[in-house]
């Protein structure tokens, strides 16, 4: 049985993106060796990566490119080689969307398709970014663990990660801060 985890950056005011999906505020995150180690260690677990169409397009436009590989060779390798699932009703078939390996499309996100995905194997499925996918899965109570990376900024307006999501009890697994001002908060929703 696979577990589903979340890894997402949020602002202090609870947004995962600006009102028009802006993520330019990621620029405030300074390079930090300890943070990089942390993300590398987590990415070694051999997870399946899952994202929505917006995040998929962004990732695909970056990690396989020379700029992506140069920015973080280790992460680029993980991103490019890991099995990936993109949840999308609109994306054309993958034959028409080349340039990235090991991608499958999930057309419908519902209780049955996710249950099937969980039962197909073991290990972890990690949702990267993709706030709207997280919301849908959280409301179906499919998320086993959250890693929220709190970025030291407030935007004033944007897209709330937990909009229409209510988890009144969570267990704090770990809180860790980094010199670049990021705080990683890991929670497990209480069932």
């Amino acid at each position, binding site marked *: 049985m696979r577990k589903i985890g979340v890894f997402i950056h949020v602002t202090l005011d609870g947004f995962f993106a600006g009102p028009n999906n802006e993520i330019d505020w990621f620029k405030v995150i300074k390079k930090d060796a300890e943070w990089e180690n942390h993300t590398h260690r987590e990415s070694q677990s051999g997870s399946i990566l899952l994202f929505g169409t917006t995040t998929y397009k962004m990732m695909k436009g970056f990690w396989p490119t020379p700029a992506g590989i140069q920015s973080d060779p280790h992460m680029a390798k993980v991103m490019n080689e890991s099995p990936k699932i993109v949840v999308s009703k609109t994306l054309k078939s993958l034959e028409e969307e080349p340039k990235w390996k090991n991608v499958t499309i999930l057309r419908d996100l519902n209780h049955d398709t996710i249950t099937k995905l969980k039962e197909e194997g073991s290990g972890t499925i990690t949702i990267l970014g993709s706030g709207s996918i997280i919301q849908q899965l959280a409301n179906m109570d499919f998320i086993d663990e959250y890693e929220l990376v709190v970025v030291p*900024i407030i935007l004033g307006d944007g897209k709330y990660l937990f909009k229409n999501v209510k988890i009144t009890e969570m267990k704090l697994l770990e809180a860790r801060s980094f010199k670049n001002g990021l705080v990683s908060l890991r929670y497990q929703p209480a069932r």
Partner: protein
Amino acid sequence: MRKLKLQVQISVDGFIAGPNGEMDWMVWNWDDKLKKYVSELTEPVDTIILGRKMTDGFVSYWSDIMTKPDDPFYAFAKKMIETPKVVFTKTLNKSQWANTAIATGYLTDEIMKLKSENGKDIIVYGGATFDSSLIKAGLIDEFHLFINPAAIGSGMAIFKHINETQKFTLVKSTPFDCGIVELHYEPKRT
């Protein structure tokens, strides 16, 4: 110059209360380390500022606990009641509460006046609208956000009507056994 500290209990998604003021999602069985931490944070405070709307509830809540010496929050309640308070109001012209002055001028002017007086730290707890105004005006010097392990989906936010991005420096994060994590930030002022 005195410092203005903001101390709030906040959900993972940034709310200090539910849409109707619900606080049932908060952790109430604080561990000893957290109790000590909060009392150390409060110790150098000699002025509490409050929004008018919250003041009645604040004063009656802590006055009530002050009548129960066995309550785990008794010492804190005593501090809350005995510390001089300034209530910000546009509708009152005199204070209705003991040990409390009122401020009726422009927010920034009144806060700057308080900060320039002699004294120790100033603290603000709420309410949400008052906190938002202070944050928007860039008047908070230290943010102490006590993140409670719950996401409530909607509610009263302290980061509201803020039209431009504000950046912060993380001073430290402190996890507690009861599940609360305190995040301590200072604003980056340019």
